[in-house]
């Protein structure tokens, strides 16, 4: 299953020094970086520095916890996604991402990055203090789309082009990594059974799983009972504060706020929200409602659509009657995707914004233009991101899976998350789960295909490189605005600190006094 090549297996002898591996990685990074632009050299320096800082801190944090299990045997990564049934569309992508990451780890590759401390300075040091150039016409757009130009006058920041480097060993801690990936069948009950199996039977070292929030909530009680290290890689509504769970997908505050800000300023304040009638849709709509007034926007109407609805004639007429400046579409699932062709055929030509479409289900590839004309979406990853590092990633992907239709946002999240786990385990020097959790809480940064991602220790969520993507009348994707690092701040603001206080719950905006002043529905 894991398709790993069994060659070049340089097995290292026993106990790996906790700080040695990131240090070695950093060194190698410097070697590779030689002769490149100054920014890269600076980057490498910072990485080295971060690693050193972590190395200093490490003895107290990690060494004492080295109650590692026997080093022999494979490192087991449990991975549950839906390979059949309704959600297989997304599950198969994520499964392939996991296979690619595991293959690379076994071949002795790793993504750049390392512990940079809890404040995450390592990430920010990579960029100039000045805000990146905003897209305002063709001229400037080009710069941003190419991720900056070394000699250009408008350059604001730069990213490493080559982020996949040698890890200095094959496998992880000298052990081969094995991917155990059963099929969730788009059925919550099977998810629970499989989670129990992976934890109790296979005794996986790390669990990477979950597409829908319902799936995550189905397995989280089991995960918490077993104190299993669990990585949830999906974009979602936010709010999970769980000591065992690390959420590596983007959440509302990272996506809704930038896109609403941009849309209100560009197209006008009158917003019509049409959202899927379940947790994600309702909570994202609540975020929109709470945030829009702060930038001068106004929700003129909200409509919630049950997931089973696939005929949108009435909703389209309601939008026309309301005459908004733009429409915020938070529609989820394949039934609800029908909205786009139907709205387009009915002559609905309002600009649209979303946080879900295109990046997950590649609607811009599946629907005939111009269904998604003037669709704006804040994403942390799309296959089209024009940076060199992403193009290299896309190339590697299609070499392994030539028949895949698209690489979505969640697939990329899974990919870097598994690399992130490997780096944390190397830092901990063990696959002992408590140690790895501690290592992950040391302020980890990783150079993902999207850009640098920083795992924020207190909330177990990630900062992301957010881009505002838009599709034109021919469904060509361009990126009109970029935010190199947006922090997940909401949980911090309501006082979550998982490093200090263990918690196992999901907060919803109603629990935040800041939100309570806005009614939720109707």
């Amino acid at each position: 299953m894991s398709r790993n090549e069994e060659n070049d297996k340089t097995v290292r002898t026993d106990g790996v020094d906790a700080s040695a591996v990131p240090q070695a990685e950093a060194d190698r990074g410097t070697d590779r970086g030689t002769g490149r632009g100054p920014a890269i050299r600076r980057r490498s320096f910072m990485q080295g520095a971060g690693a050193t800082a972590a190395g200093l801190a490490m003895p107290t944090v990690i060494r004492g916890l080295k109650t590692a299990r026997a080093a022999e045997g494979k490192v087991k990564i449990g991975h549950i996604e839906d390979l059949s049934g309704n959600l297989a569309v997304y599950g198969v992508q994520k499964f392939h991402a996991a296979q690619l990451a595991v293959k690379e780890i076994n071949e002795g590759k790793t993504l750049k990055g390392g512990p940079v401390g809890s404040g995450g300075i390592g990430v920010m040091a990579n960029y100039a203090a000045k805000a990146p150039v905003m897209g305002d016409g063709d001229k400037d757009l080009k710069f941003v789309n190419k991720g900056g130009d070394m000699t250009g006058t408008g350059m604001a920041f730069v990213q490493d082009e080559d982020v996949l480097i040698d890890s200095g060993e094959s496998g992880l801690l000298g052990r081969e990594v094995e991917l155990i990936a059963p099929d969730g069948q788009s059925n919550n009950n099977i998810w629970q059974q499989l989670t129990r199996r992976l934890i109790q039977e296979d005794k996986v070292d790390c669990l990477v799983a979950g597409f829908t929030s319902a799936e995550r909530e189905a397995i989280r009680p089991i995960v918490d009972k077993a104190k299993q290290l669990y990585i949830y890689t999906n974009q979602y509504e936010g709010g999970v504060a769980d000591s065992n769970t690390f959420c590596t997908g983007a959440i509302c505050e990272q996506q809704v706020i930038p896109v609403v800000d941009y849309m209100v300023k560009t197209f006008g304040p009158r917003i019509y929200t049409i959202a899927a009638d379940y947790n994600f849709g309702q909570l994202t709509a609540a975020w929109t409602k709470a945030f829009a007034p702060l930038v001068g926007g106004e929700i003129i109407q909200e409509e919630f659509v049950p997931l089973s609805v696939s005929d949108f004639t009435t909703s389209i007429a309601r939008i026309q009657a309301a005459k908004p400046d733009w429409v915020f579409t938070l529609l989820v699932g394949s039934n609800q995707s029908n909205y786009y062709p139907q709205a387009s055929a009915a002559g609905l030509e309002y600009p649209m914004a979303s946080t879900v479409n295109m990046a997950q289900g590649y609607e811009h590839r599946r629907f005939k233009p111009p269904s998604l004309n003037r669709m704006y979406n804040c994403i942390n990853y799309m296959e089209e991101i024009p940076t060199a590092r992403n193009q290299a990633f896309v190339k590697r992907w299609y070499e392994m899976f030539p028949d895949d239709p698209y690489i979505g946002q969640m697939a990329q999240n899974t990919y870097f998350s598994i690399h992130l786990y490997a780096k944390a385990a190397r830092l901990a020097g063990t696959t002992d789960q408590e140690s790895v959790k501690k290592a992950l809480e040391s302020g980890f940064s990783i150079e993902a295909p999207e850009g640098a991602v920083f795992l924020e220790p207190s909330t177990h969520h990630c900062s992301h490189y957010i881009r505002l993507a838009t599709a034109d009348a021919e469904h060509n994707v361009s990126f009109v605005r970029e935010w190199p690092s947006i922090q997940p701040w909401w949980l911090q603001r309501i006082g979550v600190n998982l490093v200090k206080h263990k918690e196992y719950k999901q907060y919803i905006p109603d629990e935040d006094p800041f939100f309570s002043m806005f009614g939720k529905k109707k």
Partner: protein
Amino acid sequence: MSGLARLVGGPADIGRGPVFWSLVALTLLGFALYPSAVSEFQVSNTAYYLLNIPLGLGMALLWGYCGVLSFGHVAYFGIAGYSYGVIAGNLSDSPSGPVVGALGGLLVSAVVAGVFGYFVFYARVQKWIIPILTLVLTLLLETFLGQTAGYQWRIGSVLLGGYNGMTGIPSFGFGEFEFQGTSFYYLCLVLVLACYFGLRMLLNSGFGQVVVAIREDELRTETLGYDIRARQWAVFVLSAVLAGLSGLLYVQWGNYITPSQVGLLQAALPVIWTAVGGSTSLLAVVIATFALNWLTYTLSSEGNQYAMVIIGALLVVTMLFFPRGIVVMLAEHLDRLLPRARREARR
């Protein structure tokens, strides 16, 4: 034959005679010893297969013995589960919380089934419409529960949780004692046995005979002086309570329930179990429910993308070659092979 033996061993279900009962005893012994032989995970998984059995039994009772097909019995499964979650969750400080919750859950599903059943049976709605009516009810419930994500859908201290479901549902227990792992497995096993033998006795009683008579010929039974509406209603409520029992055990097993548990895909499952095993036998449905749950899990556990294709093809083949249910027809076949045992059973 004493009265009790006649009730248990009567002709309402397949399986009679000493050979059969010794096999049953052996199987039960196997189930009783099972937890000591396997891992905790396998025990909890087997508990899951077991906890679905009351739902299947309710289906067999209603459809196989009474001739009324409900396509929405998962609604009562869900109602009991959610009610338990709400009640036990609100009484989480009280030691009797889970017990009150369980009784409350069963009561709520009985009341809802009672009202709906009254609406259906006392109006003498045509039989073939009942599956669709019940299906519409469960779809309504799913649509409603799916949009209860917000705080305004809080009952006491418990959030309904919308599509993501209700989490943190307490396990069942008395006072300090909680049913978990192996003890939960035994709880399921005991309840399944109680349901099975209880139903077997009920169906061998006079009441059961009339129920079967209603299935065979409603008009004839009515013109023998029976209010068939009342009997159908009673059977409907009883089967809903059985579905509710499965729902209770389900939420205690996973401490969690979502609206998709009452959706279209889940709604079809009990009907499938019953049809595959053979709706006219309780035992057949018990076996089929257990086996199909096991099969679904085993196939998905392999990560095999063909799992659904295999299950689908299996259903088609089963129904082609065993139209009255695989277990029932195999049992009949066995009966013919063992004429002596059969004669003995007659006595």
